[in-house]
């Protein structure tokens, strides 16, 4: 059995929805609210709650604007968010290596 501390996986990212959001944001420049809602099969409320948590942690930047009188919300990952995600992936890698050993 490995002696890796699983608590090192950050709780904020360690949820199915937020991990998916962070992955989408790290692989793109900008992601629209409706894109995330559609791909993650989430309700508006559920997605908003998760996005707010990521925003409060300083992991995402939110831009709200009106295009042809319709509201549009887009998200971008911040440098802090990028670092947190990279650390998270690094820890996942360590767990896999520890499990293999």
């Amino acid at each position, binding site marked *: 059995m490995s002696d890796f501390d699983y608590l090192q996986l950050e709780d904020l990212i360690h949820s199915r929805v937020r*991990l998916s959001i962070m992955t989408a944001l790290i*692989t793109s420049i900008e992601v629209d609210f409706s894109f995330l809602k559609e791909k993650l099969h989430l309700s508006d409320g559920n997605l908003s709650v998760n996005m707010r948590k990521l925003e409060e942690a300083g992991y995402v930047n939110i831009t709200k604007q009106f295009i042809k009188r319709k509201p549009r919300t887009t998200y971008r990952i911040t440098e802090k968010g990028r670092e947190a995600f990279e650390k998270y992936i690094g820890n996942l890698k360590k767990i896999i290596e520890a*499990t293999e050993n």
Partner: protein
Amino acid sequence: MGNEIEKELEIIQQMIQNTKKRAMDSGNILIMWGLLFIVAMIFMQILQNTISTKRLTIYFWVFPVVGLILTLILKSKKREKKKLKTYADKIVGAIWLACGFSLATIKIVFIVSSHNIEFIFTASIFFVIIGIGMIISGYVYQWSILKLVGLFWWLGAILIQLLPQNYLPMVFLNQLGLGLIVPGLIANHLNKKEG
């Protein structure tokens, strides 16, 4: 724990798949350029038959300017609707901007140098640059059709030098049809399929 890690990796992999685009979303821009140059060819043919002037090619350069304006309009419309902005789109946009500036620079150099450079020679250089843009775009989007289209433009650059002048309209039409309109239609179709 092993199962949990597997699930996490699955989530990451699935989301990367979701955000990975296989098709360029500039299908309409390719189609517009193809159609615009077909109109330009017909227009030039009509001019050639009606006006007897040696400086006919000057009129031709109105069309790229119109194309540039239409490209900017189409791009800004697309930007409004875009749900996902990817790094691939950004890179391909930069490549085509560089290609466009290269084409404009070459034309300006030819005009300024005041050498009597034939239109057909300029066209070959333009075909090569369009080919470069297509091939790099094909590699960025991992889309083989665009790579083949790039090679097709290079082949066209050689063909227009080798074939007799009466074959040129046919070669130009082929290039515009198979090198711009067809890939544009395929890109639109793939984009619709991807959602």
